[in-house]
């Protein structure tokens, strides 16, 4: 399957041609070039998937293939970075997701970004992102993953800061890059620790579950915890940074300053699930060697899911609601991974996480693209500027509704199936946690329909421009994604991806399914009664009832302010400034002092240099006479 390299090369080619040709391409040429290249890449990805999933299983397990593996840089005898392609169920699944969503975004942007300054640049960056993200998922070793991990970080930075004349966008891009970079630092430390003990970066070796590989790390502890636990926990911090887990989530809501299709591609469907993918990729390591870290991941993820869902209920910027919803849903995926076991029915969580990743990517991209269509028409992100849009934008309305139902977990939409699997995995792990996650699912349904009713129902706001449905280039991706959201749930996903590679048959747990659907429908009706007319006074009363709590949630529980305090007050004011002062005044002052002392010292001898020739002559003659005396008489 050597041709699978095209999936990487085509977007990169797009980046290079569009990046170098720059503004010489007139009109929408750049967009067409980028889209055509990406369509080819997507086609290649589908071919790869079709061929891969039709390969015969070996002992019932899907093989993992390496059509390419070049040694790129050698560190030591054992450690070397390879660049290659690893095809196994999850990477092939991810390739399909990435290229599909990316292609949709490419097509959609032809309409959305039309006439924007920097149209070529936009498509070039999209190409760079698609290249990096594909490189990330097909990484054969953890260092290759780190390389592409950084590259997606940078493409995300460039795309968030696409409107670089807007100060908010610049600040948001900076924040996103620095927060994820901070997390990547821990990821790198984790990589270094793991490689120090195992002497390899290779996923094939690391994930073989071979305990001999980790033998040298066994029994070593650092500050009371096993070194290996430290290592995997650090790697998870890297994953948490990219996947916006609490408390490293702060960059994601701000990242919505980027163009909306970018939010759909990077900050909803693909890049933010890189952390989930990383944990899934290293799942055997977590499961066999550091199960306590895996459980920790589950708790952090569950807390994040709850936190983000609560915050999403009170946001008024539609993109921010979606952003918090994304954080919450990624929490769901990681919870599922965290509670998962390895074989057969125990491995439901793993399969469910991947399944949810797949379905979520589709319907969340759809939500963002729909939101983009709305913003495109309304010219605002605020819910208060919308309302009653269902007449003006019928297609957008229908597709958005489909996505909302999918996210709320209503059958037969895809979200129902994947979320149900997650819930049954969590219930198997701990009924309390299962109940909690069901509650979060209900919150999800509530805030999504709050959003839905506020946008499409209720009283229309005043608009300067007449409202219109989006052009075909924008609605066709919406329809396509809505279709996928409708049917994807019926995929026999367990046949493709499972924890141990064996075939896994999904069967619905009826009690959990019915329970969660009933609660979700109840939440939807609650949202309907509160927001349908846009005149109900109940929401304000409720806000008053919760008082401080409501205000805190609206301000995202002041996490951003805490960060602001730490970075500006502590790092800048208490470390950098004093250091700079110390440098200028103490170290440099010491050296200047040295120079000063030398200067003063030389003044002390100045009297000898009178500049008077005659006194020099006298001294010289005196000296000569002394010498003469010495030579003659001594």
């Amino acid at each position, binding site marked *: 399957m050597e041709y699978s390299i095209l999936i990487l090369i085509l977007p990169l080619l797009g980046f290079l041609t569009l990046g170098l040709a720059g503004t010489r391409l007139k009109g929408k040429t750049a967009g067409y070039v980028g889209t055509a290249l990406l369509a080819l890449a997507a086609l290649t990805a589908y071919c790869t998937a079709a061929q891969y999933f039709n390969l015969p299983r070996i002992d019932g397990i899907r093989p993992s293939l390496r059509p390419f593996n070049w040694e790129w840089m050698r560190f030591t005898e054992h450690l070397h970075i390879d660049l290659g392609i690893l095809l196994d169920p999850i990477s092939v699944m991810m390739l399909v997701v990435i290229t599909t969503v990316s292609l949709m975004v490419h097509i959609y942007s032809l309409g959305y970004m039309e006439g924007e300054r920097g149209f070529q640049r936009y498509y070039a960056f999209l190409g760079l992102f698609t290249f990096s993200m594909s490189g990330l998922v097909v990484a054969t070793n953890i260092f290759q993953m780190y390389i592409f991990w950084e590259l997606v970080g940078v493409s995300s930075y460039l795309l968030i800061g696409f409107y670089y004349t807007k100060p908010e966008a610049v600040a948001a891009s900076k924040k996103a890059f620095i927060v994820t970079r901070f997390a990547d630092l821990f990821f790198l430390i984790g990589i270094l620790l793991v490689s120090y003990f195992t002497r390899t970066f290779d996923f094939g070796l690391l994930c073989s579950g071979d305990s001999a590989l980790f033998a040298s790390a066994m029994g070593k502890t650092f500050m009371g915890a096993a070194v290996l636990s430290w290592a995997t926990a650090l790697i998870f911090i890297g994953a948490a940074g990219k996947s916006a887990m609490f408390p490293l989530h702060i960059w994601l809501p701000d990242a919505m300053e980027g163009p909306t299709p970018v939010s759909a591609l990077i900050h909803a469907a693909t890049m933010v699930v890189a952390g989930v993918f990383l944990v899934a990729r290293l799942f055997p390591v977590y499961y066999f060697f550091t199960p306590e870290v895996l459980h920790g991941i589950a708790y952090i993820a569950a807390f994040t899911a709850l936190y983000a869902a609560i915050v999403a209920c009170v946001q008024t910027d539609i993109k921010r609601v979606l952003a918090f919803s994304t954080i919450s849903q990624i929490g769901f995926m990681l919870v599922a991974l965290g509670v998962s076991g390895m074989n057969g029915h125990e491995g439901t969580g793993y399969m469910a996480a991947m399944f949810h990743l797949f379905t979520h990517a589709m319907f969340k991209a759809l939500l963002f693209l729909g939101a983009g269509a709305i913003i495109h028409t309304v010219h605002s992100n605020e819910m208060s500027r919308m309302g009653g849009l269902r007449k003006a934008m019928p297609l957008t309305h229908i597709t958005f509704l489909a996505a909302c139902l999918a996210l709320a977990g209503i059958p037969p939409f895809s979200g129902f199936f994947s979320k149900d699997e997650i819930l049954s995995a969590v219930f198997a792990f701990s009924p309390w946690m299962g109940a909690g996650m069901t509650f979060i699912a209900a919150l999800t349904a509530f805030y999504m329909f709050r959003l839905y009713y506020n946008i499409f129902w209720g009283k229309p706001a005043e608009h300067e421009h007449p409202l219109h449905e989006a052009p075909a280039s924008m609605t066709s991706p919406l329809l396509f994604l809505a279709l996928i959201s409708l049917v994807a749930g019926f995929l026999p996903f367990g046949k493709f991806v499972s924890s141990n590679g064996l075939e896994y048959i999904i069967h619905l747990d009826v009690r959990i399914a019915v329970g969660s659907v009933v609660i979700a429908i109840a939440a939807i009706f609650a949202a309907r009664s509160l927001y349908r007319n846009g005149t109900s006074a109940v929401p304000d009363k409720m806000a008053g009832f919760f008082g401080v709590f409501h205000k805190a949630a609206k301000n995202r529980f002041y996490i951003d302010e805490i960060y602001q305090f730490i970075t500006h007050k502590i790092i800048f004011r208490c470390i950098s400034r004093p250091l700079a002062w110390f440098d200028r005044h103490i170290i440099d002052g010491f050296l200047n002092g040295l120079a000063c002392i030398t200067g003063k010292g030389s003044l002390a001898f100045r009297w000898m240099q009178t*500049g008077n*020739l*005659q006194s020099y*002559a006298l001294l010289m003659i005196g000296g000569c006479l002394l010498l003469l005396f010495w030579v003659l008489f001594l």
Partner: protein
Amino acid sequence: MEPIISMEYYLIVSSIMFFAGIYGFITRRNLIAILISIELVLTSTDINFAVFNRFLFPHQLEGMFFSLFSIGVSAAETAVAIAIIINIYRNIKNVEVRNIKKLKD
């Protein structure tokens, strides 16, 4: 042919001239006087050259030629020095050593 006056007398005269020159060089305050003192020192060495040549190597002429060279050099040197002194005079209207300290401050 033996010289009538022995060598010591010549050397005594030249020594007196030499130290008189040194004394003048150190004590005089006027540039011209200092220049004259330097000339005295140079002349005394010329005498020494001639005398040593005459008494130690009577059949050779190197010492004599050295004296001639030395006289030539001192003439050139005097010319330069006087030129400098004249310039100094133009600038500060006198030639006293203590007034020349532009380079010092």
